[in-house]
């Protein structure tokens, strides 16, 4: 069934795309040949992503893809090939092109004798020259320099400093991109989705910084190869591992320690990397806990392992296997819960010929949590388990048609298995199992896109992604009465219907056109525009301010329609300075969202078999402007980003059917990130974050009922009061060991003997929240007599004494120290 709101003229779109593709084929006046190959780092054999391969004579250029592969087709002739990548020596090679050529290049890191630091590996003028807009690439080098909570650098926390990215408050897991909810972000670790990217309720993210190679955030202009979420793609790619020699690195911090080991499986052929972390707050707190019998059996820790291996088979094939396994555990003697992600990805790169590159990815992803308690007399207990499992295959092909066109096409199929919850209660030896039915779904997509240089100054990337979703049996189909309905729980109008295995319960198809345009105004400035439609078929069910590990995902069903977003953005990009030292950009965006999910008042979402009956559906909109100034080079570097935006929704039955701001809406958002290299060994960095307060629901009136005092908001407006603004400054100092000057030849081949030659350390002192600010996370109504904390007297307490309270997380200066090492 096709929903009525998706009625673009497919034929027009298709014929437009085909005609554009046809213009790509022009008559060949002279023989053409292709130079193709891969680009690697000479030091450790890692593939180099996003480096520029340019041809001096023709001004043609291409960039290496996510696997370091490139291909460029030119007429017969003599050429000078340049490879440029910031922080690396420029590679130049003269080629007499009279046949197709393989060119496997290794580039070498520039030995920086000056105290200058490069913090980006993008091509120097990528800000202006790349067709990409609304995309932020963060280098691990940059992330590692930022002051971090308790001295532990974190990918997700760093992302929150980018323009257009915010969060509902520090400590909340996840992030909001351009007014989208946190489930509007697709977080990919080596192409496999990670459903909960946080450890310890959001204080840290699941990505081990030592094992991460590259982080890229797409906020708009998402290429057709990606889909499945409305707002953003966070593409995290792991290191492949050093294929030249064994190496180790790690760190010892206050909260956890890290250790990474990497090395060749066979030199220059294959390599592996293994990284692990374990927190030990529970171990450190043990003496304090021992004196408190309430906390017997206290557990609080997390661990994670990241593994990856790759191997080159012949010259045309390369296989990768990577995995992540992480778990958070906490509890006391009678109660506990734990959650974790596991992902496993295999990939196969195949070069069919000089121009056709293929990557096939297969992945498995599982997010699960379990909750257990023994609260009753007589050995009774309950346990609850829930998970979401994905299996997927994703072939992607890139065809380097000629120097003006690069075509990408492929597809993806995902099988979802949602297990919303199994609750087991043992009551006086009687076992009761309450199982919510598993839900199954299939998501498919095919896509094609082309990046085309139309005239030298005008480039276009256009594509179409066609996505489809099938909610299938075995399952239960619930049918509700016709909309509109108001803000109250609905119940099925008929007995829920059992649907057999593989039978379709609901299906949806959505075409998702994507378009990016770049026009170079001058050598140093460009104008870019993009349009994208994205659709999302799975939904995070959560009505709390911060997402909790117990939140569940649900598929689109016959009652829950897929979310659809249309986003347009325009941007102006300008570089300044002799060496394009300063990058600046301004982007404006407008986003229109359909089928946004909200909840009836007081909806209970945990283990609710009638979940669809407490959901409401409405529309959303977000718009804003993002400004960024970034300095990548020199002793002083960093960025300033400022976002002014609004994110709202309108749902029948809520807030008197009027537009209301989202809980994470922040009008102003200013971030400053700076670091300064004091000497070769010492650097200091600081960041500052300012944000308008987010809106919350508050009562202004109240009444007494049955001895209780209940709050009431007669206006019925949702998110009616803004909490105070947010401001925080962090700072850190890093001291590095003296750089040892050995030639590779001097260093013994034996790994252990080489340690003393290679050992380098770094000591990082950090202070989080330097100003000791008590930044509010929420304002909430409170009864002054804390009812549950007064032992023995709460049966006579009264809650007639009421006030508002401000809750702050990290409401104090938090110092941290971390010792990092590598050898």
């Amino acid at each position, binding site marked *: 069934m096709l929903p009525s709101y998706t009625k673009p003229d497919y034929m027009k779109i298709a014929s437009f795309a085909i005609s554009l593709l046809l213009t790509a084929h022009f008559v060949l006046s002279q023989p053409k040949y292709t130079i193709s190959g891969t680009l690697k780092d000479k030091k450790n054999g890692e593939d180099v992503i996003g480096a520029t391969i340019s041809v001096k004579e023709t001004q043609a250029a291409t960039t290496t893809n996510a696997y370091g592969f490139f291909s460029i087709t030119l007429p017969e002739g003599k050429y000078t090939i340049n490879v440029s990548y910031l922080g690396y020596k420029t590679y130049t090679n003269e080629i007499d092109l009279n046949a197709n050529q393989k060119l496997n290049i290794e580039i070498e890191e520039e030995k920086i004798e000056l105290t200058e630091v490069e913090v980006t590996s993008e091509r120097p003028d990528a800000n202006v020259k790349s067709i990409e807009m609304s995309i932020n690439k963060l280098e691990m080098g940059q992330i590692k320099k930022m002051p971090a909570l308790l001295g532990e650098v974190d990918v997700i926390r760093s992302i929150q400093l980018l323009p257009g990215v915010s969060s509902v408050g520090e*400590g909340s897991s996840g992030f909001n991109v351009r007014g989208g909810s946190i489930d509007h972000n697709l977080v990919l670790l080596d192409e496999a989705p990670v459903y909960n990217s946080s450890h310890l309720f959001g204080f840290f993210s699941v990505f081990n910084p030592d094992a991460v190679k590259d982080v890229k955030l797409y906020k708009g202009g998402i290429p057709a190869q990606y889909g499945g979420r409305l707002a953003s793609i966070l593409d995290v790619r792991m290191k492949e591992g050093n294929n030249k020699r064994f190496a180790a690195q790690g760190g010892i911090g206050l909260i956890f320690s890290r250790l990474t080991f990497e090395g060749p499986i066979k030199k220059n052929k294959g390599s592996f990397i293994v990284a692990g972390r374990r927190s030990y*707050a529970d171990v450190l*707190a043990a003496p304090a806990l021992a004196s*408190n019998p309430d906390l017997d059996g206290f557990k*609080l820790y997390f661990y994670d392992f990241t593994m990856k291996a790759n191997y080159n088979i012949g010259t045309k094939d390369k296989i990768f296997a990577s995995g992540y396994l992480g778990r958070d555990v906490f509890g006391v*003697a*009678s*109660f506990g819960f734990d959650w974790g992600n596991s992902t496993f990805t295999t990939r196969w790169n195949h070069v069919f010929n000089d121009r056709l590159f293929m990557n096939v990815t297969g992945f498995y992803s599982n997010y699960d949590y379990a909750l257990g308690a023994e*609260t*009753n*007399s007589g*050995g*009774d*207990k309950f346990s609850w388990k829930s998970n979401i499992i994905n299996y997927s295959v994703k072939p992607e092909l890139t065809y380097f048609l000629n120097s003006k066109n690069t075509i990408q096409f492929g597809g993806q199929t995902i099988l979802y298995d949602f297990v919303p919850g199994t609750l087991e209660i043992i009551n006086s030896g009687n076992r009761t199992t*309450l199982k919510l039915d598993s839900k199954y779904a299939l998501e498919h997509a095919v896509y094609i896109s082309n990046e085309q240089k139309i005239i030298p100054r005008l480039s276009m990337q256009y594509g179409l992604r066609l996505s489809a979703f099938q909610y299938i049996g075995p399952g239960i189909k619930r049918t509700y009465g016709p909309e509109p309905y108001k803000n109250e729980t609905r119940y099925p109008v008929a007995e829920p219907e059992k649907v057999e295995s593989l039978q379709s319960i609901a299906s949806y198809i959505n075409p998702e056109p994507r378009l990016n345009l770049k026009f170079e105004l001058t050598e140093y400035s460009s104008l870019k525009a993009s349009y994208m439609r994205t659709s999302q078929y799975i939904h995070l069910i959560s*009505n709390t301010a*911060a997402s909790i590990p*117990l939140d569940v995902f649900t598929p689109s069903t016959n009652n829950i329609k897929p979310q659809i977003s249309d986003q347009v953005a325009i941007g102006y990009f300008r570089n300044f300075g002799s060496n394009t030292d300063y990058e600046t950009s301004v982007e404006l965006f407008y986003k229109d969202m359909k089928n946004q999910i909200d909840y009836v*008042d*007081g*909806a*209970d979402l945990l283990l609710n*078999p009638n979940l669809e009956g407490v959901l409401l559906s409405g529309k959303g909109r977000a718009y804003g402007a993002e400004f960024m100034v970034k300095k990548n080079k020199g002793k002083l570097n960093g960025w300033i980003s400022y976002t002014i935006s609004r994110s709202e929704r309108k749902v029948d039955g809520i807030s008197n059917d009027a537009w209301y701001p989202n809980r994470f809406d922040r009008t102003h958002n200013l971030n400053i990130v700076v670091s300064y290299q004091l000497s070769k060994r010492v650097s200091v960095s600081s960041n500052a974050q300012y944000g308008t307060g987010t809106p919350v*629901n*508050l009562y202004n*009136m*109240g*009444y007494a*009922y*049955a*001895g*209780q005092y*209940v709050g*009431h908001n*007669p206006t*019925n407006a949702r998110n009616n009061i803004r909490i105070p603004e947010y401001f925080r400054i962090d700072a850190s100092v890093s001291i590095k060991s003296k750089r040892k000057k050995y030639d590779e030849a001097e260093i013994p081949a034996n790994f252990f003997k080489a340690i003393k030659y290679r050992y380098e350390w770094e000591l990082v002192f950090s202070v989080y929240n330097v100003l000791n600010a*008590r930044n509010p*996370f*929420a*304002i*909430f*109504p409170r*009864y002054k007599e804390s009812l*549950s*904390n007064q032992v*023995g*007297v*709460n*049966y006579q*307490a*009264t*809650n007639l004494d*009421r006030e*508002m*309270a401000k*809750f*702050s*997380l990290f*409401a*104090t200066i938090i110092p941290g120290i971390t010792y990092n090492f590598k050898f």
Partner: protein
Amino acid sequence: MKIYYHTLLFILSVCMLACTDPYSIDLEQSDPQLVVEALLKHDANLPQTVGRDTVLLTQTQKFIGNDKTLATIDNASVSITSNAGQTENLTPLGNGRYASVSLIKKIGYQYTLTVKTPDGETYNASTWHTRPCVYDSLTQKILDKRNPNTPAGVIPKGVYIDIAGYDPAGAGDSYWLRLYFKRVYKNIFTGKKTSPYFKGDSNLTKYDPWHYVRDPNKIGISLDGISADNNTDTLQNSTNRPFALVLKDLILNDLDGPAISDKPAYFPGDSVWLDIVSLTYPHLIFLQRMKKELENGTGGGLAGLFSTPPSNLPTNIINANSNGKKAVGWFGAGTYKTHKIRIINFDFIENQGTPGN
């Protein structure tokens, strides 16, 4: 989810990173609205009950504050009509109270409340009496440990109260378990002070009369015998199901707070009185929502982080003029059964150490 919040709260306070401060905010005040609180009581042991009910009319007032005196409505005209054809005009008692003395109540009867307020608005509400549960008595027994799976010594030996009764077969039976508690200062058997537990507790004598247990956590609600704190509708089709232990433990055996408490709930001489009141399902949902809203306000700072957004409770008080002023509250009918018990087991108390804090 109380345990969940407590554990989370604990973790954050251990880290000493989080804090909660009072926050002064000037919230605009809205016009007061009518609040109706009424429960027509029917004793399940009698074929019918006559009168003995009050309807309380108050007004909404500002949320922040500590007004212990409620703004009442005293000049309203209040009447109740039953589907047996009887209409009673209630007698004003003052302080917002209106008494019913002659209304005949029976299982299956339906009632309509009409309130005409002095400002000219007319409000209506309807409800009906539902069937009772089977509830024969309260029992007590000593358990060595609350839970044999926990390490010895953590959870003390204690007296635990149980309900001899069950929810009859059939779906949709909604109950409100209302607990009253009385603790005497002296052990009625020995004449001694009851326990080292009470040393220095100057409030004790205040507990002498019966106290309705008001802690919002202890609002006992059940649908078909199991706890109705969360959604339960898949378990509705029951056959004579005993009341769930989770529910009984929370209401009866966990007076002192979190379920991980190391203190016994009862001491010799304590008395407990438990009403099990059968309600209509919408009334149960009203109480479920009320409990959630109140717990949001007592869950500490994490209320802001992990609680659902504050929202208004439903009401069955409807203005006859749909454009007129809205009202809040609930007009309910309860078929109740009641039992009391006094704790007589006291041998074990001698070995009871001073509980920690």
